[in-house]
């Protein structure tokens, strides 16, 4: 296959202290193919990707591009060899315009000093036209949606003539409309002779839709390489985990009275924009309420208002029968509310140990205080051990820093420490974003079981499959308002998707 392979990885091995992240991995990508790489977090996917992009160097094995062996010492080397990467956490400069971000580092020169923006514009316009990547290149990144930002990242790689475009979890942060466009785009890129490598941990249906081949990684080595024709979801799941996972069951939607009532909450954003514009909804005891919506429509602000990090300009929040509109985080936490932020940096501190992170939930509790001043670290260590055990968290030592854990394990630990305080209401914002399938199911399972004792969960997510899978009711947020609330049992993806983009569907209950 050497002749048609654009990139070939042979026997790539990479070790870190205590773990072999990549174990003799061989992988090749042909011109014009879409070759997906599947694997749980911890399977070695991200290490392999970083090796391909020059961030790490392999301990053994070689990389061949167009048949010739190369050494990639840095991302600059990788880019020069025609490898482009579209990151999951988009690496764009918010204050710069799209144009400036696209040409960053590859500015066409005018003379020795000036930048030839007109040449850049022409080229970008040509690329946009060719692949249908419509975007306002003079807009500032911070004003653009996640979907638009992703398109700009893609344009960046195309601007540098990438022959191989690697996508890191491309569909995990965009809505259904953007997803469809992306899949079409990927197909167009491949048809044009480039190769596309999406790195995915779940979202298997999308894999089937577009990929030509799939390589599955498990525990650092290649479990198998499959052609699309030979694929079935069960086969893939089995290859990834060795077993077929059942999907989480739907809880009954029979609620009782409301644990949380939000009425007309309004919060101004920067520059006078209303980020929350009269949000009203309620959460019944014992239910999982989903909040669907493309990111950037007020979900983060709603979370901050509920926790008390920001105060609403107008409106009321009633929790467990009491008005908590003016309460701050410490009070809300004490009252039995808990919040899992989308931004993991808000839920965990990477530099601190696992134990110190667990202590985030318990430091203010009298049970964990000795002599009024001292923190009972022994008890915290015990609690940590219990959580790690009960939530199947893979780690090195309890004194290791939090960031040495993989994403899935970090999230499980966070969920564990929060549930260990038995809050009456948990609001979880994209808790499964970027996580492997096993961790996702684990979290769904825990959340579903948690409501059995009368507690409630708000699940804010962009993943409709997820929402329809475990929620009783689904509310939809758009531009700072709730555009509708539907029963999960009877709602369709089209309906919800429509509400998410501001269309109001006329019919209901269509398949």
């Amino acid at each position: 296959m050497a002749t048609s392979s654009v990139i070939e990885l042979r026997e790539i091995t990479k070790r870190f202290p205590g773990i072999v992240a990549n174990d003799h991995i061989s992988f090749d990508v042909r011109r014009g193919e879409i070759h997906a790489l599947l694997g749980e977090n911890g399977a070695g996917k991200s290490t392999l990707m970083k090796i391909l992009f020059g961030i790490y160097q392999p301990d053994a094995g070689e990389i061949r591009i167009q048949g010739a062996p190369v050494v990639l010492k840095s991302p600059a080397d990788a880019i020069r060899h025609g490898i482009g990467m579209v990151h999951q956490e988009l690496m764009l400069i918010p204050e710069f315009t799209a144009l400036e971000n696209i040409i960053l580092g590859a500015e066409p020169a005018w003379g020795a000093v000036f930048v030839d923006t007109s040449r850049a514009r022409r080229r970008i316009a040509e690329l946009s036209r060719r692949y249908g990547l419509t975007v306002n290149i003079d807009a500032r990144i911070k004003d653009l949606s996640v979907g638009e930002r992703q398109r700009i990242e893609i344009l960046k790689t195309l601007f540098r003539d990438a022959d191989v475009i690697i996508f890191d979890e491309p569909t995990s942060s965009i809505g259904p409309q953007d997803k469809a466009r992306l899949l079409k785009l990927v197909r167009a890129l491949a048809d044009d002779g480039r190769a596309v490598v999406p790195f995915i941990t779940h979202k298997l249906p999308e894999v089937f839709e577009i990929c030509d081949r799939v390589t599955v990684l498990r525990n650092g080595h290649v479990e198998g390489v499959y052609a699309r024709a030979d694929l079935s979801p069960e086969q893939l799941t089995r290859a990834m985990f060795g077993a077929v996972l059942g999907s989480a069951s739907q809880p009954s939607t029979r609620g009782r009275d409301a644990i949380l009532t939000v009425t007309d909450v309004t919060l101004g954003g920067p520059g006078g924009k209303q980020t929350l514009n009269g949000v009203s909804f309620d959460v019944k005891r014992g239910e999982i309420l989903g909040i669907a919506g493309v990111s950037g429509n007020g979900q983060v602000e709603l979370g901050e208002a509920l926790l008390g990090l920001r105060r609403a300009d107008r409106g009321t929040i009633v929790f467990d029968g009491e008005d908590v509109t003016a309460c701050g985080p410490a009070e809300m936490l004490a009252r039995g509310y808990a919040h899992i932020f989308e931004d993991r940096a808000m839920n965990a501190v990477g530099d601190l140990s696992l134990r110190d992170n667990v202590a985030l939930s318990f430091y203010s509790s009298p049970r964990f205080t000795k002599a009024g001043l001292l923190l009972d670290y022994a008890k915290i260590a015990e609690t940590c051990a219990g959580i790690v055990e009960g939530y199947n968290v893979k780690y090195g030592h309890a004194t290791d820093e939090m960031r040495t854990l993989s994403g899935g394990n970090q999230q499980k630990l966070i969920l564990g420490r929060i549930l260990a305080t038995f809050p009456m209401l948990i609001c979880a914002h994209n808790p499964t974003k970027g996580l492997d399938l096993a961790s996702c199911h684990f979290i769904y399972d825990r959340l579903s079981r948690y409501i059995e004792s009368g507690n409630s969960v708000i699940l804010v997510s962009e993943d409709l499959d997820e929402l329809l899978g475990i929620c009783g009711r689904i509310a939809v947020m758009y531009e700072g308002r709730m555009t509708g609330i539907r029963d999960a049992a009877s709602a369709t993806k089209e309906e919800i998707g429509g509400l998410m983009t501001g269309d109001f569907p006329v019919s209901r209950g269509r398949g």
Partner: protein
Amino acid sequence: MAAFEAESQATSGGAEEIEVSRPGSEASRYLPLGYLALSLLLSYGVIGLVVWSLGLDVTGFFKDMFLYPLTTQSGLSTMLRRISPILLSSLTLAFAFRIGFWNVGSPGQLMVGMIAGTWVAIHLQGLPWFLHVGLTLTTGFGAGALLGLILAYAKFHFGVNEVLLSLLLNFVSQYSVTALLYGPMQGRPLLPYTAPILPSAELPRFFGRVHVGVLLAITLVLITVAVIRYTRFGYMMRVMGSSMAAARAAGIDVVRVGTIAVCVSAGFSGLAGVMEVTGVYGYGFDTIVQGIGFYGMISAFIAFGRLGYLIPAAVITSMVLSTGELVKAYSKVLPSQTPQLLLGLIAFGLLLTTALGQRASR
């Protein structure tokens, strides 16, 4: 500096995909000592080279350099006296830095503490010594803490950059105190000296001229280490220092904890200031704490910002600075600022070795 290293080694964006990417904390804990040893070697090496090129006796010079502060009466007592303010000044920086707050106002806080405490030392008559000493020290601490309160309020309520504010307050404090020393606090004609303090306010001495302030300083460092490590307050500080956002989200009252921490850190310098008067000179004057704030910062830097390393770092700094008499003997060829030069070289060497070390470990 552990925090500096952590900042600069921040791994790439997607936190979800972090594999085990660094050795366990055991190995990297002792790495700073290696860097320090290396930079000490380099710095003394450079000085040795200079000495050698000037045709002087290198081994004799080094023997004197190390033996002088440790074996001679004057060298030893100078060193021990110096440790106290340097240690407290470095504690100011290191303690505030635990919550990510840059308190570089130690010089100013030293001055304010000095003048306030000296007033109490001069004017409160008829008190038994332990009461007088206690009040004097507390006033010095309190005055410094007041300056810290200004910093904390400005930072937490207005978002004012504390580096700029504390740095500039140094000048405000210095000139205000000097004005007082030429004004109401002037104890001698024409000179910015206060009147001598009352005997009941003097700090007890031992080993000749060494005052108990040294023991107090060491005790305070140990107490802060214990506070950070074992108490709830210390935990909250640590969380704030690593992630202010996560601290707020976890319900920590960052304004309260931050204000207390900053005030206490500033108080340490105020205490150091007044102890120079009551333990060393017996009266206050404008250049009493000349350079101490600066040496304190360097000492904190040598300690990598770690509270646990502050005492050895202060010893090293003190040792380097206490070769004054020795240098005078070589004063025909060596400048009298050679100790300061050496200190600067050590600090620079630390930056160099740490940066190269981080590069190599990638």
